């Protein structure tokens, strides 16, 4: 795609802005900032990826993956406001997921050990793990708030933190995985996923594109489950004080 053709895509932004002005949504500034940021970010990433692909050095791949995990943890951590130390726990969960996924994909030679494969597939699984982490924390906040009586009842009967909050953990892990599982059920019928669409537009064989998409869908499901379970295990104690009372959450 030429830069001239790319500039025509601004028509979509113009349409959105006009709708915002017409309906007095007051979103023009946000749309402008979003447009500029996304364009600059994506172009920069394009150049960075080009450099990394050319150099093919593991240190650059590791650096990019670290940035991805850090940004994802920071962003998902916003859902856990009031939980001290939640961000490094999210980073640990997403990091473990990424290591496990890559170990399987590379170890079983499902993908080639080149940045062209590692970086995009990692980006998608880390992004999905970020969404799952945010969903998990949202559900947990709601669970703990609405089941305070139940949790305190168990504490009164001498339960440990884990025993008292176990049902809430289970429900939150389950809820955080539902969008990924639902997506898996309807993929290809309701929406054509981004990766597959991109490959087809770039001229790849559709069947080949579908194969990679299947890989991604399955990887998403595993990463959702692993991230959510690890996060629940490393963070459940944050809902309690050191002396096993329910911790008051600061907003």
């Amino acid at each position, binding site marked *: 795609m030429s830069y001239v053709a790319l500039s025509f895509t601004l028509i979509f932004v113009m349409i959105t802005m006009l709708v915002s002005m017409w309906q007095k949504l007051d979103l023009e500034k946000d749309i402008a900032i979003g447009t500029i940021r996304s364009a600059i970010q994506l172009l920069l990433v394009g150049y960075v990826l080009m450099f990394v692909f050319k150099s093919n050095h593991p240190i650059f791949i590791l650096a990019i993956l670290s940035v991805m995990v850090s940004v994802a943890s920071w962003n998902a951590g916003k859902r856990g406001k009031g939980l001290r130390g939640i961000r490094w726990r999210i980073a640990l969960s997403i990091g473990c997921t990424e290591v496990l996924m890559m170990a399987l994909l590379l170890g079983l030679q499902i993908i080639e050990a080149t940045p062209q494969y590692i970086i995009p597939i990692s980006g998608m699984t880390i992004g999905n793990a970020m969404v799952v982490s945010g969903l998990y924390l949202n559900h947990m906040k709601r669970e703990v708030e609405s089941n305070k009586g139940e949790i305190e009842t168990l504490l009164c009967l*001498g339960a*440990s933190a884990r025993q008292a909050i176990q049902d809430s953990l289970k429900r939150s892990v389950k809820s955080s995985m539902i969008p990924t599982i639902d997506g898996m059920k309807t993929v290809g019928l309701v929406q054509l996923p981004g990766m597959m669409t991109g490959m087809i537009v770039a001229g790849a064989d559709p069947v080949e594109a579908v194969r990679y998409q299947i890989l991604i869908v399955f990887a998403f499901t595993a990463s959702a489950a692993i991230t959510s379970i690890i996060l629940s295990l490393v963070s459940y104690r944050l809902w309690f004080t050191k*002396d096993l*009372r329910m911790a008051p959450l600061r907003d």
Partner: protein
Amino acid sequence: MTNILEINQLSKSYGDKPILNAFTAQIAKPEMISLLGKSGQGKSTLLRILCRLEAQDQGGIQFHGRSYEEVDPKEWRKKICYVSQQSYMLPGSVEDNLRTVSQLHKTPFDMSFAKELMTSLDLDHMDWNKKSADLSGGEKQRVALVRSLLLRPEILLLDEVTASLDMQSKQAVEKLLQDWQEQEGATCVWITHDLEQAQRLSHRIWFIEGGSLLEDNDSHDFFENPRTESARNYLQLVPKEGRSSCPM
């Protein structure tokens, strides 16, 4: 001899509002204690602090001479158990609720004891497979009490546990707790607004006002000859012949 429980200078505020103010009391021997006072005087907060569901701002608690700081909260709560006014059923059946204690602590479930307690509370005909969520308010309250008694705590902290019960169930609960206290050598600290009940059941009265213990008196003496003006006013709010309802 060491006291069973010593409460020393407990203070607690919510923001600028003081709830407990240097509350001090001792329990030397197993007995029934009624905690009386108007609403909003810190009674429930006191029980929640004694069970360590809430932290005090100042002061300490000792159980058999050991400070609360030295005892693991889980072990503490197995000995000092709080039963709230609002009975929360855990998900599952009645039996699941009754088995909670044995499952939590990996101890054998004492079926005959559970049946005995259920019978004492007129729940002998209850289907144990019934979903706990489908029980009536009064049934939930009684099952919650049985669930706590299966822990065999040394001190039971009861927060208006008979408030939502009919007369027959109320009497069954009173009888069970009296027997329990005598047979197990346990202590019950009981919040109630039913003065007749307090008079009938208690050995001692703790009268609380403004978060302070104004009177720690023998039950008979408290009702016949209260020492403080506040207690006299509190008792006068309900005429003697009608002391089975809330004084508020």
